């Protein structure tokens, strides 16, 4: 005795997956993301350009102000220089001749240009 297929044959076997495909076609995702990123990069580099121009604007505004700020600062430095010179002259009057000679000695041998006095803290190089 042998089992036989039912009359009309078996039902077809479902061997293929039958999941519903979600979302759009893959090419739509690809081009969509590509487009979005292209826009993002375009916008980003526009922003970079703009940042550069903004800093250029800031720099030129500073360049235009620099002479007037320097002029003000120069007057202040000159004021301090002249008042320090006046103070030194005042002190010089009460010096002994020996100290006066030492005081009057030129600091720099090179007299080709003017130098502002520079003060540093430390031992006098002559006493070292």
């Amino acid at each position, binding site marked *: 005795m042998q089992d036989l297929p039912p009359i009309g044959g078996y039902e077809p076997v479902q061997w293929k997956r039958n999941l519903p495909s979600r979302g759009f076609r893959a090419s739509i995702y690809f081009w969509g993301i590509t487009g979005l990123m292209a826009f993002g990069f375009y916008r980003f580099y526009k922003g970079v350009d*703009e940042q550069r121009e903004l800093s*250029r604007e800031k720099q030129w505004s500073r360049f*235009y102000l620099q002479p*007037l700020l*320097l002029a003000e600062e120069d007057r202040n*430095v*000159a004021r301090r220089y002249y008042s320090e010179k006046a103070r030194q002259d005042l002190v010089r009057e009460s010096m002994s001749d020996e100290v006066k000679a030492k005081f009057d000695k030129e600091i720099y041998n090179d007299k080709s240009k*003017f130098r502002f006095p520079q003060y540093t803290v430390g031992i006098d190089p002559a006493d070292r």
Partner: protein
Amino acid sequence: MVLGGLFTSRHQWENVDNNQLPTSIPEVEEVGATSAPLLAASYFIGAQCKPYNDDFMLCKDENNGGTLDCLKEGRRVTRCAISVLKDINKYCFDEFKLHYECLEQENHRTGHCRPSEGVLGKCIFEHMKLEKKIPGVEKQIHLNPSPVYQGTSKDKQKTAEFLKAREVKESA
């Protein structure tokens, strides 16, 4: 005596320097403007005072710093800048104030104060024939109608209010 008084120094210190410039050097009024008004006025100062500024900077370049040699040119620079600021205050005080207050609030970011800058620029061009021009580029950033970095809308709103108030004042 307050407790704090016990711990302070015996010396009274005042922020006054009594050492004035020698009388042989002429006095000049200082600009005395703070950073925001200076930033707002910088391009107009640059446009108006170009010869004096260039003269001063060249003098400094030629004289090894020229702190003592270029005081005369420096006075000219200062006087010119003051004259520009005085003119701006005379003709466009309200617009100027609107713009520099915005700059002050917006951390000196010029990009965040475009509407008020436009109003100020228009007023200054009308009265003083000075124009803001950034050298070296064709495309002027301050004239860009749709910038990426727009900042807050505060300045836009304040400028609109300012223009509205002025319209009401003019029509009345």
